[in-house]
C-alpha cells in the first residue's frame, strides 16, 4: 500500500535527519534490558535449580514409610522420566568395640539422578556401571559401603576397614566428601552410610515392622515432572509425601524466591525507565512533527492517514528496535554468563526463546502504551498551523494518556514480577512517588522558592535571575524534566549505593558464624552438664529451648484429624506430633504479623490455677490448617489435653538456621509437661571434634550438622549477588537513557531561546552561565528527589523482598544532590555548548 511505502520513506528520511535516535535508543535499551534480564534470569533459575535439585538428588521425590506402589514408578517411566529408588533406615554400625547409630541408605544403580556424590578416594574399587544420563559417579559395589566424615571420626574408622551393619560385614570403600539427598529434619541427625541395595536383604535389617523410609526419585524434562507431580498429588495416601526441592528445603526455597523477586524487580526497573525514556522521546517527536502534520493536513491528508502514517513508522521502528534489542539481550546474557564463574561451569542449556518473545512483546507494549497517545495528538494537529505557527500542539487527553501508560506498566509489572502483590506495590509506590515528586518540583519551581529568590534577592547575578525566571516560566516542562531526571538518578543511586547495602544486609542474614549444629533431645537433667560442656570447650553458652511433643486434636472445640483436610500436606501435619515450645520472649528472628506477643504474668494466678495460656502460631501453618487469630486450639500431650487461644501469628525466617517452632506457648501452659531441650550453635571448623565429643558424652543427644545446607544457601546467595551486579548494568544504562531523553526534551526550546538571546546581544559567556545556572537547579532538585526515591525504594526492597533491616547511609544525600548537579550540568553543557559558539542565524536555520 502507498501509505506504507510513504511511511517507510518518511521513516528513512527522518532517520537520516536523526529524528528517531532517542526513541530507538530508548526502545533498544528497554527490549535489550528486558531480554537480558529475562534470558539471564531464566538461566539463573536453571542454574539454581540445577544446584538445588542436587540437594535431593532428583527433580521430584516421593517419600513413604511403606513400600511405594509400582504404579508410581511406571507412571514416571511412561512419561520418559528417569527413576531410581532408595530405602533408608536407622541402624547401628559397629567397629571394634564401638557402635554408632547411623542413617543407612540403600541405593540402586543410577542414584543419584541429580548432582553428584563426591567421594575420596575418587575411584573406589570395582564400582558398578553407571546408569542413565547426568547421574552420579556410581554407587558402592556390593559388599562395600561409603561413609561420611562423622562416622569415620567417631568410630575412628579408616577407608579399607571393615564395619558391621546388621549381620553383614562391609568394607568401607570410600569417604563421602560431598553428600546429597539429605533430608533436613530430626530424622537425619545421624552419620550417613551409603550401601548397595543388593546387600540389604543379607543384613537382615529389612524385616516386618522395621522403620524404613522408601523413596522414589524422579528426574527429567521439567514439563513431564510437573505433570507427574500433578498426577500423583491426587493419588497420594496419607503416609506418602511428594517433595521437590522447594518442599524439601525451606531455607533454599526462601533464597530462590528472593532471587526471583529481586531479578523480577530488576526487569521492572528497566521497564519503568524505558517507559519514561520512550514517553519523553515520543513527546519530543510529536513536538517536532507538528509542522509536518499541519502541512500534510493542508495538502489533503486525512486524520486517519496521518495517524496511520506515523503509526506505521513507529511499528517499523519498533520491529527494528525489538530485533536489535533481542540480539543485544542474547549477546549480553552470553557475556554475563561467561563472567559468572558458577554459571559458566554449569554447562547450562541455551536459554529458551520465550524470554525473548516476552521482552519483544513488552517492548511493543511499552512503545504503544507510551507513544500511542502522543501520536493521537498528531492526528489532531490543526492545518491552520501552516498560517499561524503560534498554535501549539493539541491538548492531549492527559487522563487517557497516562491511564494507558499506567495500564501497560501494570500489565508488564504483573507479567514480569510474577506476583500480583509485588507488582501492585511497586506500581502504586512508583506512581505515588512520581506524583509527590512532580508536585514538589512544580511547587518549588513555581515560585515558593525560586520566584522569591529571583525577586527579592537584590544582589543576584543577572544570569541567575534570568535562569530562575526561565525555570518559573516553563514550570510544567521543568517539573516533568526534574521527575524524569530523578527517575534516572534514582535508578543509578539504587544500583550503585543502595544495592551494595541491600546485598550486604542480605548476606549478613547468614553471617559466617550462623549456627551450623543443631542439638536435640537434651533431657532436663542434662541441661547443666551440657552448659558445662560448652564452657569447657570454650564455646559460647547455648540458648536451650524446651520442646514438648503434642498432637493437635481440636480447633474451636471441633475435633480435627487427617480426614478433616483434603490436602496431603495438611493431613500429614495433623497426623503427626507437633514440636511445641514455650518461651517468654519471641525469638528475634521471628516477626509478629498479627496479634500481640504475651506479657509475662507469672505462672499461677492468685488462687493457684493456671494463668490463661496463649499460643503463637507460624503464619504458613496457620494458613494450611485454617487457623485464625483468636481460635482456640486443643493439643494432646501424652494423653493430657490443654486448650489455649491463638493470640499471635508469626513469620518465621526459615533460612535463619536456628531452631524454629510452628507453635509457641506461654510458659505457664507447657512448663509442667515433660520436655526435652534443643539448641543451635556455631561450631568453628577447628573445633569439629567438640561436636563429636558432645555426641559421645551424651549418647542420647542428637547432634545434627547443618553446615552443608548453610554452605549451599550461602553459595546461592553468592551467585545471586554476582548476577545482580551484572543484570543491573542494563538498568543502569536505561537510567542514562532517561537522563539523555529528559535533557533532549527541552533542547529545541533552549536552542531557539539561545539564538534569540544571541541576537539580542547576549555573549557566549552569558549563555554558558545561564544554562549552567538552570542545569544546576534542575540537577540539584532531581538529585535530591533521586536520593529520596532510592532510600525509599531501598527500604521497600529491604523490608518486603529481602526481609532485612535497612539503614541507608547518609552519604547518599550529598552524592545524590552533587551527582545530580554534576551529571545534568555536564550533559547540559555538552548539549548546549555549541549554542554559544555558532552564529544565531545558523542555529535558527536549523
Amino acid at each position, binding site marked *: 500500500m502507498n501509505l506504507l511505502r510513504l511511511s517507510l520513506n518518511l521513516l528513512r*528520511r527522518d532517520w537520516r535527519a536523526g529524528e528517531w535516535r532517542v526513541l530507538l535508543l530508548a526502545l533498544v535499551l528497554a527490549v535489550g534490558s528486558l531480554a537480558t534480564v529475562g534470558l539471564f534470569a531464566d538461566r539463573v533459575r536453571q542454574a539454581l535449580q540445577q544446584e538445588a535439585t542436587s540437594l535431593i538428588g532428583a527433580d521430584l521425590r516421593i517419600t513413604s514409610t511403606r513400600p511405594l506402589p509400582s504404579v508410581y514408578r511406571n507412571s514416571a517411566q511412561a512419561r520418559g522420566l528417569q527413576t531410581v529408588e532408595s530405602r533408608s533406615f536407622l541402624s547401628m554400625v559397629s567397629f571394634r568395640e564401638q557402635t554408632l547409630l547411623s542413617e543407612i541408605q540403600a541405593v540402586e544403580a543410577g542414584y543419584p539422578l541429580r548432582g553428584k556424590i563426591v567421594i575420596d578416594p575418587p575411584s573406589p574399587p570395582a564400582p558398578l556401571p553407571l546408569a542413565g544420563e547426568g547421574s552420579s559417579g556410581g554407587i558402592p559395589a556390593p559388599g562395600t559401603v561409603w561413609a561420611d566424615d562423622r562416622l569415620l571420626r567417631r568410630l575412628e574408622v579408616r577407608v579399607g576397614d571393615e564395619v558391621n551393619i546388621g549381620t553383614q560385614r562391609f568394607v568401607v570403600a570410600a569417604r563421602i566428601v560431598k553428600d546429597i539427598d539429605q533430608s533436613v529434619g530430626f530424622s537425619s541427625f545421624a552419620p550417613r552410610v551409603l550401601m548397595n541395595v543388593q546387600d540389604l536383604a543379607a543384613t537382615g535389617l529389612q524385616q516386618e515392622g522395621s522403620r524404613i523410609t522408601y523413596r522414589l526419585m524422579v528426574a527429567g524434562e521439567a514439563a513431564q515432572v510437573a505433570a507427574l507431580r500433578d498426577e500423583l498429588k491426587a493419588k497420594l495416601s496419607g503416609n506418602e509425601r511428594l517433595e521437590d526441592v522447594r518442599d524439601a528445603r525451606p531455607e533454599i526455597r526462601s533464597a530462590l524466591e528472593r532471587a526471583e523477586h529481586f531479578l523480577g524487580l530488576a526487569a521492572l526497573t528497566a521497564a519503568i525507565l524505558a517507559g519514561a525514556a520512550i514517553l519523553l522521546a515520543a513527546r519530543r517527536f510529536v513536538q517536532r512533527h507538528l509542522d509536518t502534520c499541519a502541512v*500534510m493536513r*493542508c495538502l*489533503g*491528508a486525512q*486524520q486517519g492517514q496521518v495517524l496511520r502514517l506515523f503509526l506505521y513508522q513507529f511499528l517499523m521502528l519498533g520491529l527494528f528496535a525489538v530485533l536489535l534489542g533481542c540480539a543485544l539481550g542474547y549477546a549480553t546474557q552470553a557475556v554475563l554468563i561467561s563472567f559468572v564463574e558458577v554459571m559458566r561451569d554449569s554447562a547450562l542449556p541455551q536459554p529458551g526463546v520465550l524470554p525473548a518473545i516476552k521482552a519483544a512483546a513488552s517492548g511493543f507494549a511499552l512503545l504503544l502504551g507510551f507513544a500511542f497517545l502522543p501520536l493521537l495528538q498528531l492526528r489532531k494537529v490543526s492545518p491552520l498551523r501552516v498560517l*499561524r505557527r503560534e498554535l501549539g500542539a493539541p491538548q492531549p487527553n492527559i487522563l487517557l494518556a497516562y491511564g494507558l501508560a499506567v495500564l501497560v506498566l501494570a500489565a508488564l509489572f504483573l507479567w514480569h514480577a510474577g506476583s500480583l502483590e509485588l507488582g501492585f506495590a511497586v506500581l502504586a509506590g512508583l506512581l505515588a512517588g512520581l506524583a509527590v515528586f512532580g508536585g514538589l518540583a512544580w511547587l518549588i519551581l513555581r515560585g515558593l522558592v525560586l520566584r522569591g529568590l529571583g525577586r527579592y534577592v537584590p544582589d543576584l547575578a543577572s544570569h541567575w535571575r534570568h535562569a530562575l525566571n526561565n525555570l518559573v516560566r516553563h514550570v510544567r516542562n521543568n517539573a516533568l524534566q526534574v521527575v524524569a531526571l530523578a527517575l534516572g538518578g534514582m535508578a543509578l543511586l539504587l544500583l550503585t549505593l543502595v544495592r551494595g547495602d541491600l546485598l550486604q544486609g542480605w548476606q549478613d542474614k547468614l553471617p559466617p558464624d550462623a549456627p551450623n549444629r543443631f542439638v536435640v533431645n537434651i533431657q532436663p537433667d542434662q541441661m547443666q552438664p551440657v552448659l558445662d560442656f560448652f564452657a569447657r570447650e570454650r564455646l559460647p553458652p547455648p540458648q536451650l529451648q524446651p520442646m514438648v511433643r503434642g498432637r493437635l486434636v481440636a480447633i474451636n472445640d471441633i475435633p480435627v484429624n487427617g480426614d478433616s483436610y483434603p490436602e496431603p500436606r495438611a493431613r500429614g501435619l495433623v497426623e503427626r506430633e507437633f514440636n511445641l515450645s514455650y518461651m517468654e520472649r519471641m525469638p528475634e528472628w521471628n516477626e509478629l504479623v498479627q496479634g500481640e506477643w504475651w506479657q509475662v504474668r507469672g505462672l499461677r494466678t492468685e488462687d493457684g490455677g493456671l494463668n490463661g495460656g496463649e499460643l503463637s502460631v507460624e503464619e504458613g501453618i496457620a494458613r494450611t490448617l485454617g487457623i485464625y487469630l483468636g481460635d482456640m486450639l486443643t493439643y494432646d500431650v501424652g494423653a493430657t489435653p490443654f486448650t489455649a487461644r491463638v493470640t499471635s501469628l508469626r513469620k518465621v525466617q526459615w533460612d535463619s538456621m536456628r531452631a524454629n517452632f510452628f507453635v509457641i506457648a506461654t510458659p505457664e501452659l507447657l512448663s509442667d509437661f515433660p520436655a526435652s531441650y534443643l539448641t543451635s550453635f556455631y561450631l568453628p571448623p577447628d573445633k569439629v571434634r567438640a561436636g563429636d565429643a558432645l555426641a559421645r558424652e551424651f549418647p542420647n543427644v542428637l547432634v545434627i550438622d547443618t553446615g552443608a545446607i548453610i554452605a549451599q544457601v550461602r553459595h546461592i546467595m553468592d551467585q545471586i549477588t554476582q548476577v545482580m551486579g551484572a543484570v543491573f548494568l542494563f538498568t543502569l544504562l536505561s537510567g542514562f537513557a532517561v537522563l539523555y531523553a529528559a535533557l533532549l526534551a527541552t533542547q529545541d526550546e533552549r536552542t531557539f531561546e539561545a539564538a534569540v538571546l544571541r541576537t539580542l546581544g547576549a555573549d557566549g559567556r552569558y549563555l554558558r552561565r545561564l544554562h549552567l545556572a538552570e542545569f544546576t537547579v534542575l540537577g540539584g532538585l532531581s538529585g535530591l528527589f533521586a536520593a529520596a526515591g532510592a532510600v525509599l525504594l531501598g527500604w521497600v526492597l529491604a523490608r518486603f523482598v529481602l526481609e532485612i533491616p535497612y539503614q541507608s547511609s547518609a552519604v547518599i544525600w550529598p552524592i545524590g544532590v552533587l551527582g545530580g548537579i554534576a551529571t545534568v550540568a555536564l550533559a547540559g553543557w555538552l548539549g548546549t555548548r555549541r549554542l554559544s559558539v555558532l552564529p544565531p542565524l545558523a542555529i535558527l536555520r536549523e
Partner: protein
Amino acid sequence: MAAIVQAVELTKQVLSGDQPLTILHHASFAVEAGESLAILGASGSGKSTLLGLLAGLDVPSSGSVLLNGMDLFALDEDGRARLRGELAGFVFQSFQLLPALSALENVMLPLELRGAADAYARAEVSLRQVGLSARVHHLPKHLSGGEQQRVALARAFVTQPKILFADEPTGNLDAATGSQIIELMLELNRAQGTTLILVTHDEALARRCRKQLRLVAGRVE
C-alpha cells in the same frame, strides 16, 4: 462562468480574554474559475483568517464557503482535507517545507498522499519547471529563501490544482527574488488555468490580480 470559490456571510469570532472579538465580519464574495483575487489589508486586518477559512483550514463562527460548488463546512475535518487534496495548492510566506525531506521529496509528498504511482517523475518535471533541476536532492536548509519558495511552488502546482492559495508568498524574500517568484507563480497560474487567491499587502502585486478585495478591521470594503 460559475464561481469556484464563494464566501457567504463569513464571520469569525474569537474570545479575547472573556470578550468575544470579531476578526471577520460577514464577508461575502465570489471568485470565478481561472480568476485571480488579491486580498489586501494591513497587519491584523483578518487577511490570513479569511484565507484560512476559504481553504477550510479553520472553521467560521457563521457563514459558509462553497468550493467548486461544495459547502466546505458541511463536510467534516477529513472531508475538507480530501477536498483540499483534490482542488487546492498552497504557497506560504514561511515556505513550510518539511525539513527532513529533500526538495524532490517535498514535491512528491502531495502526490504520495494521493497514492500516485508516478510521483517521482512528476515531481522532477515540476521542479524542472521552477528551474531547480540541479538541486532536487538538496534539503531545505541547504537552499536559499528564493529556492525554497520555488520548491513550494513546484509542490503547489505538481497536483495541477484548480485553486492556488498563496499567503504573502514574497513576505520572506528580497524584492528581486520576490518578483521572480511572483512571475513564476503567475506564469504557472496562467499555464494551468488555476484560480489564484493571494493574500498580500503589496499594492503592486495586488494590481497584477484581476480582482482585489480590501479588508479593514475584518470588514470587506
